[in-house]
């Protein structure tokens, strides 16, 4: 386990920080789940951080000149390079601190990008930056399509979803690939921290962002980000969607710390995926058979994560059983020694 997390102090739900790094007056859609996830993540880091943003909804809605919704230093360069830009910020802070040009380099860098900017066009820059071990928190806000340009499919669009470039038709179900597994790609880089978060589980989200900031090296956080406009559900349901996705196992919440999986929220009695799909018009065209395919895929993926985290459980179990065994042996030896001493004294 990471030393940095040894005495990890969770957020106190009664005393959440009041400071909002992201200010009121941003131009996100009514009921935007993505900006909620971003708000909570930023809140977890507070006043002292630097934000590097990729092009996307969150960049557009927070920085239209001459207003900014950012109360912390914020930089946007382009769509596909936010990880590389953040790497430069990270390197600059460290070397300038070393050379005595600035006082501090312990400032968390939050990289914000959407699923398109991460899974598609920004994947190379992300991979490079993760491999180089830059100290930043990469927050992928996954709303499962290119919402900023008008709901075109990305490689993170789920199977069966209707988007403006994956329309269902006589020959198509809509999006006909299962979504790219970005957390697994991040894990494959052997970075110290990977996590999935959902704004519905806000304490879990904030705690994970805080953990990511404490760990040295790259952290990748994949945030489920309901988009009422693109998913075509009522704005009021954004948090409900984020919760249902977890309850139906569509989006399991887990952490991968130093390569070890921990399924944070087990759902032994999941709700059927249909309950999640039926609230969104992007899935309205799906037949029961289609939904069955999705259900199977969801089950399989959940089982995979569960198995990976159980391996860790088994290891923990083994370690503790082994420890108990040793303790017992020690006790027996102590007793035997005591007995011997007594016998010697007796003689």
């Amino acid at each position, binding site marked *: 386990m990471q030393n940095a997390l040894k005495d990890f102090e969770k957020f106190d739900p009664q005393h959440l920080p009041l400071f909002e790094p992201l200010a009121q007056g941003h131009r996100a859609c009514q009921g935007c789940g993505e900006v909620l996830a971003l708000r909570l993540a930023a809140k977890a880091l507070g*006043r*002292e*951080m*630097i934000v*590097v943003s990729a092009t996307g909804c969150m*960049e*557009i809605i927070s*920085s*239209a*000149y*001459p207003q*900014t919704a*950012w*109360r*912390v*230093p*914020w*930089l*946007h*360069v*382009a769509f*596909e*390079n936010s990880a*590389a*830009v*953040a*790497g*430069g*910020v*990270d*390197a*600059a*802070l*460290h*070397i*300038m601190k*070393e*050379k005595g*040009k*600035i006082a501090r380099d312990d*400032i968390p860098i939050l990289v914000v990008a959407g699923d398109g900017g991460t899974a598609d066009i920004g994947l*190379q*820059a992300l*991979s*490079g*930056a993760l*491999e*180089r071990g830059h100290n930043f928190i990469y927050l992928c806000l996954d709303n499962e399509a290119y919402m900023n340009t008008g709901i075109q499919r990305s490689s993170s669009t789920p199977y069966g979803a209707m988007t403006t470039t994956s329309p269902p038709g006589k020959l198509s179900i809509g999006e006909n690939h299962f979504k790219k597994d970005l957390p697994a790609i991040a894990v494959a880089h052997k970075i110290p921290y990977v996590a999935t978060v959902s704004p519905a589980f806000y304490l879990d989200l904030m705690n994970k962002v805080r953990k990511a900031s404490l760990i040295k090296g790259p952290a990748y956080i994949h945030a489920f980000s309901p988009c009422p406009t693109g998913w075509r559900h009522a704005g009021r349901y954004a948090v409900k969607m984020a919760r249902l996705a977890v309850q139906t196992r569509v989006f399991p919440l887990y952490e991968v710390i130093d390569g070890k999986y921990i399924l944070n929220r087990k759902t032994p009695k999941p709700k059927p995926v249909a309950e999640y799909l039926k609230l969104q018009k992007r899935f309205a065209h799906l037949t029961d058979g289609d939904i069955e395919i999705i259900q199977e895929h969801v089950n399989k993926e959940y089982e995979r994560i569960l198995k990976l985290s159980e391996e860790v459980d088994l290891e923990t179990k083994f370690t503790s059983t082994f420890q108990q065994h040793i303790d017992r042996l020690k006790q027996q030896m102590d007793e035997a020694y005591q007995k011997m001493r007594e016998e010697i004294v007796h003689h």
Partner: protein
Amino acid sequence: MSTRMPIEVSIAVSKAVQQADVDVIAAYPITPQTHIVENLSGLVANGELEAAFINVESEHSAISTVIGAAAAGASTFTATSSQGLALMHEILFIASSLRLPIVMVVANRALSGPISIWNDHSDIMAERDIGWIQVFCETGQEAYDAIFHAFRVVRDPTVQLPMIVNVDGFNLTHVIEPVFLFEPEEIKDYLPEHRQALRLDIEHPITMGPVGVPEVYTEAKKQVEEALLNSKQVVMAAWQEFGQRFGRSYAPVEAYRADDAEVLLVTMGVISRTAMTAVDRFREAGKAVGLVRFRLWRPFPRAEFQEAVRHARILAVIDRHISLGALSGPVCLEVRAALFNLPDHPQVFGFVLGLGGRDVTVDDFCDIVERAERYATAGPEGDYTLIGLREV
């Protein structure tokens, strides 16, 4: 005192970067830029240069990384060539728009396709509008000096723009030649400290790179252009001071035996040296031929150029880039544009040569001068002339 050393020009360039107190270098290998960044990585590895050397996974990330570092207030450097520069393309505009003081060496090389690792100017000529200050070099000494000059210029608080030093790939980067190298204390006073007012700083949180709404985009562009145009004064002042301190003087437009010349060759980069020998030949034969070279390419030194060619009858403008479908190479186009509204301007003929590493010889320049004289009376053979082209 500076020492005259036999040195490969790329190594001289990296030594200049070392002496400029750079903080962050990010680079991706591409021929013929490699020797510059290899040597820099070695200097960092040996503790001879206190900087972060970041081996990025593409040129796109190289420029992105130095932008991030520059936005955080670091002095930054990168180098590239050809496809690498083209891959940086979209980000280059953003670097100038963000007004970040980055120094980049472009080891000029042809752009694909077909793929060519050899020297011409097609890489940089595809980046004419990026808002960076751009200079060219003709010798190793000039390349070495240009690095100090570039760091001096971009660190000027009135400039706040990135700058490209063009060094012809192989034909200059890989040549071993004598270069006077500075002792650290010699150059120290010439280089100001790198200080950046607008940067990512938690004490003064600012928003960098906001959305340029229609109400501000035009003004934003105008602001960068004005900064670029005004940078010429700083560029020239820095050259002047360099000349006063070190005895090597540079100017936006430089002339060679051009004063009374009827025919002027117009060049830039390393081939200018060869052109000088051609000029000497004509002069020996009693012909009034001269040479004018662009050292500063962006901002375009209009006034200096107009003045330099004022008395000539014929200009033979050399491009080392073919601008497909245009009326001539880009240098020639701009020269024509610079002269068009002047009364009694010289006749201008465009020549393209030295593409993709094709050697540029003294004979080529002699051929060009003779053709230009012929065109002046008989008219040109086309919009421009491709020298050395094999027909069959």
